[in-house]
């Protein structure tokens, strides 16, 4: 199972759909840690790392509340999957899939801008090929 991260503003992640597999999506904020072990001896560097870590945690907390995330993909009935994601208030979310023959992203579902958070479940048909999903948010 691989997660594809796409560093484009407004996109959180891309998740490949696999046949008959549940795809729990973990938090990407973990990649922020563990960067400073090589600089442990210099106190000022340690201090800088400490500040950086605090900043990373703070940034991570902020991003966790605002960045889109697909929380779960799982098989449904015989030939479908359900895709779960949560939304923040006052933002529009587009659940998109990659159309492999053309390489274009298409909207599978658009969650409207509503003034409160919500949880969505989107049904999609399974095929015998992989499918990439991503969640786009505006603004």
């Amino acid at each position, binding site marked *: 199972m691989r997660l594809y991260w796409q560093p484009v503003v407004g996109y959180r992640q891309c998740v490949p759909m696999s046949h008959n597999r549940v795809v729990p999506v973990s938090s990407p904020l973990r990649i922020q840690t563990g960067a400073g072990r090589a600089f442990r001896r210099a106190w000022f560097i340690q201090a800088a790392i400490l500040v950086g870590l605090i900043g990373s945690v703070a940034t991570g907390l902020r991003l966790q509340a605002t960045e889109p995330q697909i929380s779960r993909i*799982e098989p*449904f*009935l015989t030939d*479908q999957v*359900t895709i779960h994601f949560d939304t923040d208030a006052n933002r529009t979310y587009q*659940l998109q899939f990659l159309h492999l023959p053309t390489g274009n992203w298409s909207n*599978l*579902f*658009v969650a*409207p801008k*509503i*003034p*409160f958070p*919500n*949880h*969505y*479940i*989107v*049904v*999609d048909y399974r095929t015998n090929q992989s499918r990439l999903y991503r969640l786009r948010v505006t603004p």
Partner: protein
Amino acid sequence: MRRGSLFLLVGWMGSRLGAAGCELCAIYSADNAQARNAGWIATVSESFISYHTVLFNDHELSGHDLDFRDTSITHLVPGYNFTPELGVNLSIPLVYHHFQRTDLRYSLTDPPVLRSEHSTEFGLGDVSLIGRWTAFRRAGMETSVAVSVLGGVKFPTGDTDRIADEVQQTQIYDALLPPGTPHDPLGHSISGVHQHDLTLGSGSFDGIFGVTMLSRWDRYFFNAQFQYYLRTEGESGYTYGNELMVAGGPGAYLLLGKSYTFNLQANAGYDTMARDELAGRLSNRTGWTAWYLGPQLGLTVGNHFSTVAGVDIPVHITANGLQNVPDYRVHASLVWRF
């Protein structure tokens, strides 16, 4: 002061006409004190409620083009008093909703679809048959007191298609979630105007209970009423929450002529409705409590005609989840005693 008693009772009942499900209100408008003789009574009452305020967990939402609902209920109430103490009334509501709602419609085969409705609903609501027994009465020239007990049944005569649709959406949403996932049975909805708000009937036989108290001293009066609605399971297993209404307040006769009276009353109201149950679970997106204040005017002309009109302004409302709640309520009624 006999006519004064008439005005007192009519005015008091009119104060409750704003409640959406207030079958007793219309009944009591018909049951005026002057008509405590045997005979027929006819009442037409109207209540209009504007639901343009959207609350999400008690916080008011702001934005453009929010969902709304305007509800008008016209009650036609023929009644008959067998004796001065015992009477019966039939409440026939005609319900009209003008609304806008945007909600998701889930499917087992396709992604959910966002659907907006800007439409109306009109039709017969749930008919009620209610009996009255005046358990206590003392009437004199300067003072009078009367206490009555009410009891009745609301019948499932109104259309329930919207409730059936809402329950079906709940079942679909349940099926999409992994088994055992905790969620609200109305979790599929993103609108403050729910299908169960727009239904004409509940599909249930409900019990209606009430106690009323009327008191007068010279030109001044004070009225109070308690109503309780015991809901049972209705369409597709949907059960509305039980509802308690308490209302009343002081008033005074401003004009007392030979053939007319005119009064003004200050009303306070308290309504609380428990959470609804559907798909075997209580919904935390239903249930609310509201406090109202408002003036009410009353007029009687001759021995047969009386009318009341008033406004209820909500001073405090709490609501669970996402719901549209009243901005104001306007009510009026006409009573003719044969």
